[in-house]
């Protein structure tokens, strides 16, 4: 664990009979970050979050929040605000009573008063519905109440399990805005499979597949690491031999021909790490030598979805 880690796990593992739900998860989540935890269904995201929330015991390994180990029980859970994938509350309580009840579970020194309950309800946009029974809440309202109850104890870390996946676009937008507002105030660790949201909100990302961590990095850094290995090249006057010739340039890993229009042909050129500039120059020189015109020769910027698909579908998992 580093000093500025809000969450730290070492070799966190959960195996059920016949199922390796999570294996050897070692992560350091920087304090104050919004950390996206990505993975396809069944990747082990919920299992990891439940272990971090103290709801499930690890088979092996350890986890801590703000330096307090998960085995410390109530002392640990004071530092954690948890939102389940499908939040459930007591239907007979109102939103205000629900927050009041959760607040009362914290020690007197940390306990939120009525004013803070009202402020948190207002913050999540539930001030008008505060005195309605939660049984009458819509899915979006339930999710926002879920974030409110996770926030009410002023925890060091929010653990949100798929906080937006069940919401309509408006509800999703509202919850993402709320998460963005929390940046710097509390560390947000959330799981999702909606990659656009992660790209918009998260400053760090970890990708899980088959119960194992595939990659963890700052979002921008992860995307940039893939930016440098792919070029889009469009050449006028190219022929069938052009792709073969480009493939023979040192540093080129592969060349995939793309669309054709008039005498223009496009190519996606995969290149070895660190060879970008050399390959770009070589392509320009090759075209000039063969009387062809290069109209595009630039790095392709991959979205998180492309990166995610490449990481979970291939063995391309080098750190």
């Amino acid at each position, binding site marked *: 664990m580093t000093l500025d880690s809000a969450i730290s796990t070492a*070799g966190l*593992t959960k195996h059920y009979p016949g199922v390796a739900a999570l294996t*050897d998860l070692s992560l350091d989540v920087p304090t104050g970050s919004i950390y996206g935890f990505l993975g396809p269904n069944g990747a082990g995201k919920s299992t990891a979050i*439940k272990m971090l*929330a*103290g*709801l*499930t*015991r*690890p088979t*092996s*390994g*350890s986890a801590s929040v703000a*330096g*307090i*180990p998960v*085995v*410390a*029980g*109530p*002392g640990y*859970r*004071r530092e*954690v605000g*948890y939102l*389940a994938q*499908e*939040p*459930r*509350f*007591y239907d*007979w309580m109102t939103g205000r009573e629900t927050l009041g*009840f*959760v607040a*009362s*579970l*914290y*020690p007197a020194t940390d306990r939120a008063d009525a004013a803070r309950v009202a402020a948190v309800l207002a913050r999540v946009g539930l001030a008008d519905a505060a005195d309605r029974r939660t049984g009458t809440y819509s899915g979006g309202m339930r999710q926002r109440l879920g974030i409110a109850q996770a926030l009410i*104890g002023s925890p060091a870390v929010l653990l949100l399990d798929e906080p937006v996946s069940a919401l309509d676009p408006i509800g999703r937008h509202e919850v993402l805005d709320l998460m963005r507002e929390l940046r710097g105030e509390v560390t947000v660790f959330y799981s999702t499979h909606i990659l656009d949201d992660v790209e918009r909100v998260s400053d760090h990302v970890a990708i899980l597949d088959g119960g194992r961590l595939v990659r963890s990095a700052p979002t921008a850094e992860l995307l940039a690491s893939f930016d440098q290995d792919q070029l889009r090249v469009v050449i006028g006057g190219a022929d069938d031999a052009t792709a073969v010739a480009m493939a023979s340039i040192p540093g080129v890993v592969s060349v995939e021909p793309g669309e054709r229009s008039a005498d223009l042909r496009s190519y996606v050129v995969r290149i070895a790490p660190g060879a970008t500039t050399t390959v770009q120059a070589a392509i320009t020189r090759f075209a000039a030598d063969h009387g062809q015109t290069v109209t595009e020769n630039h790095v392709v910027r991959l979205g998180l979805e492309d990166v995610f698909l490449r990481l979970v579908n291939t063995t391309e998992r080098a750190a």
Partner: protein
Amino acid sequence: MTASISLPARNAGRISADRLAGFGPLFRKELLEWAHSKRPWVIVVVTTLFMTLTAANSAINAWIVANVPEATVSGAPISLDPAMNFLAAISSQIFVLVAIFAAMSLLVAERDRGTLAWVASKPVSRGAIWLSKWAAAAIVVSIVAGIVPMAATFGLVAVLYGSAGVGTFVFATVGVVASIAFIIAVVLAASAVISNQAAVAAIGFAVFFLPQILVSLVPLDLEPFLPTSIMGWAIGLAGGADVGFVTPLVWLLAVVALAGFASWRMERLEL
């Protein structure tokens, strides 16, 4: 690899103090949940009707014999003794059946709904969650399935047959409340292991009724050593019998053991 975790020294004292963390607010929540439910009203009506009608049975039979010329009484002669008729209402043990049905869903339903996981993610101990459910259920069910129906029965017996004696009422009520508290502890402890309401109820019935049947089959007098004999012990005490203090001690040990087991088991629940 196995988990190897050592706690910082500053946390050690706190962890032992945290064993009942959250009990107060959880207990209040449980009482409020009972207050918001129709269940106590149903229990009090059903149990009171059942017990008062049982107690009134002799008076009704006596009235029929006196007023219907062709009516005859089969079996034992009708007794109009107040204490006998008051105890007849208790001997049906309707309160035990009601307590099992009232408690069998308390923990299981919370587990199914996901509210147990929600509450367990807060800074509370799981032992406190169990204890608050037991304490609230024992109090509420004791009132609605024990004290109120017994008071109504005692009143009706006084009107129909004369007073059964305040001592009989008080000791019998103590026995009923203790039986209810015990059986709810059994049902909730079973709920910490099994997540099926029918199975939980079956365990409740088995624990309460099977030993009573089994001890009658062996030549030794094992009845004082059963926590389920607490009712008989209380009634014996009311009647001035020398019943000793083994049974209440066994009852207390059994309840403490059930609470300890359930708390241990709750900590290991995968939520």
